[in-house]
């Protein structure tokens, strides 16, 4: 209960809460000698209650005006799950359908399918910390690791905007891995790369990525959304002249990932159903116990203050109607 106040000077108004101690707000009728009237415990009790009500009503109004709120808090939680960074490809080819055409009414684009299925995936993974990063020409930082599923789903939904040009996978991976920096190592750490193509990674980047994957102990899942008639990641070149990174970037990227030394799994999805299967696989595999802090956002309590004050004021108004007029 870390309570805080927006405008601390408004708390001086709390002095007003002392007013009911000096004035009971009732029209006094004169009595010649009060000593003659016998003491009455019930009346004293009721008067005390009314005083407290009045003081609480004033205090509630003042606290409401001062903006009482509960500060952001961290709650320690232990669950089964993983730290997952969704690394989404935002190259323009993602806006095509699995058949490699612009989507018509019948089939959806790869991006839409990925979006739909990832949203379901996020829904199922209630205890995970999930972050979102994207890449195209350069990496896009979308959402850090968070347990707030609404935010993640909103971030995934935001990929509905039209995509950009290129596919710069090495920088995207670098950003995805950077999400794990300054995070405690609990549960498993996953980078879920969803892409429909690959690009060659230059030598320097390869070196750095190897280092980072080792350092951060990250597992990599690659869901390759294969467009019909394009080279897959498991294809071997028919012609040895095509056996280079420039001609078959997917295969070489796959090979690079295999050689990273960290656990790696690749899925080749050629339809929304295959994509669904791949995601279900990951969902099943990654359930290690993990220890994390849930962040509870700042909670505004002024509305509660106002409603309590209103209730009390209504009660006092009712009592006012019970007052005897003489």
């Amino acid at each position: 209960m870390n309570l805080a106040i927006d405008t601390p000077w408004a708390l001086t108004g709390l002095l007003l809460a002392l007013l009911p101690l000096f004035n009971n707000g009732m029209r006094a009728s004169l009595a010649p000698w009060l000593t003659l009237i016998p003491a009455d415990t019930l009346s004293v009790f009721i008067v005390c209650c009314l005083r407290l009500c009045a003081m609480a009503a004033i205090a509630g109004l003042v606290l409401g005006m001062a903006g009482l709120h509960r500060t952001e808090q961290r709650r320690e939680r232990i669950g089964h799950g993983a730290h997952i960074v969704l690394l989404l490809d935002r190259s323009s080819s993602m806006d095509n359908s699995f058949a490699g055409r612009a989507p018509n009414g019948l089939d959806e684009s790869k991006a839409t399918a990925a979006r739909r299925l990832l949203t379901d995936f996020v829904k199922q993974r209630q205890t995970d910390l999930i972050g979102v990063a994207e890449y195209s020409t350069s990496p896009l930082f979308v959402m850090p690791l968070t347990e707030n599923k609404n935010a993640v789903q909103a971030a995934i939904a935001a990929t509905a905007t039209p995509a950009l040009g290129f596919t710069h996978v090495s920088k995207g991976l670098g950003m995805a891995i950077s999400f794990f920096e300054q995070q405690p190592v609990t549960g498993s750490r996953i980078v879920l790369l969803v892409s429909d193509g690959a690009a060659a990674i230059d030598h320097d980047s390869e070196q750095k990525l190897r280092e980072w994957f080792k350092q951060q102990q990250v597992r990599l899942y690659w869901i390759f959304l294969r467009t019909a008639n394009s080279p897959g990641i498991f294809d071997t070149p028919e012609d040895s002249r095509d056996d280079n990174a420039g001609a078959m970037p997917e295969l070489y990227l796959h090979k690079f990932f295999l050689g990273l030394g960290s656990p790696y799994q690749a899925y080749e999805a050629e339809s929304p159903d295959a994509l669904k299967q791949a995601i279900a696989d990951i969902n099943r595999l990654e359930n290690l116990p993990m220890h994390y802090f849930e962040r509870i956002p700042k909670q505004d309590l002024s509305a509660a203050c106002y409603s309590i004050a209103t209730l009390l004021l209504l009660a006092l108004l009712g009592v006012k109607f019970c007052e005897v007029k003489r």
Partner: protein
Amino acid sequence: MTETLFYRLPWQSSSVYPGAHPGQMIGAGQLFKRHEPLIASPDPRRIDLRASVLDPFSDYRVRVYQQQSTVNVYVLADMSASMGYADKQQTLLQFLLTAANSAFGYGDKFGFIGCTERIEHRWLLPACQHSGRVSALIKQLERLTFTGTANGLQNAAAFLPTERSLVFLLSDCHFPLFQLRQLLDSLQGHDVIPLVLWNQDEYATLPNWGLISFQDMENNATRTLFMRPALRQKIIAAYQQRQHDLKHIFRAFGSEPLFITERYSTQTINRYLQQRAA
């Protein structure tokens, strides 16, 4: 034209002036008192031959008669704030006027002692027979708002004459009982007629239900009561107990109080005065 209070004395006034009440003086009167030698009261018309013959010293015996004398009538009024409640002040003034007129009618002297916190000279009227001064005093009192307590009552005896007088004590007796005892103690040399002014609104006409905030007229303390039939009965019972206690104390000092809780009426007081003289 105001009504008259028929106050009669069950004792003899020591005043020398002839008036309307039984006195200790001898003189022109109807009631035989004793025989005296002719030397002591040289009135040959009143020689009692039979008593003179029977006198062993052969002196002339003269019959002497009790003289009707005046008496000093005082109104000792409590002018504390509680006496300003409802129509008490009005009752006080009405009684003051009636008593003064009655006293002047009997040929008695009338005085007034108004007591607030202390006794103030402007509320003092020494025994006199000037109805003009009384009406002037009443006019002043009409404009006055009663405040404070009635502590001045304790010193009132100092402003009364030493000879026995008739004292009407007008108060609501809303002060501690020991003060009342002290007051009656100091007034023991006089004939005290206590008139206790209460008002039905104080206790009898309270509502059965509701919240009511009372403010004490004397010390301004406030108390809020949640009225309900049981509490109302308790308040009425408390007033009855108070009435009982007051009667007890007054009787201990030889006077029966008259509680005036309804509207002021001279007839009620007269009935009470006649019961008292009987």
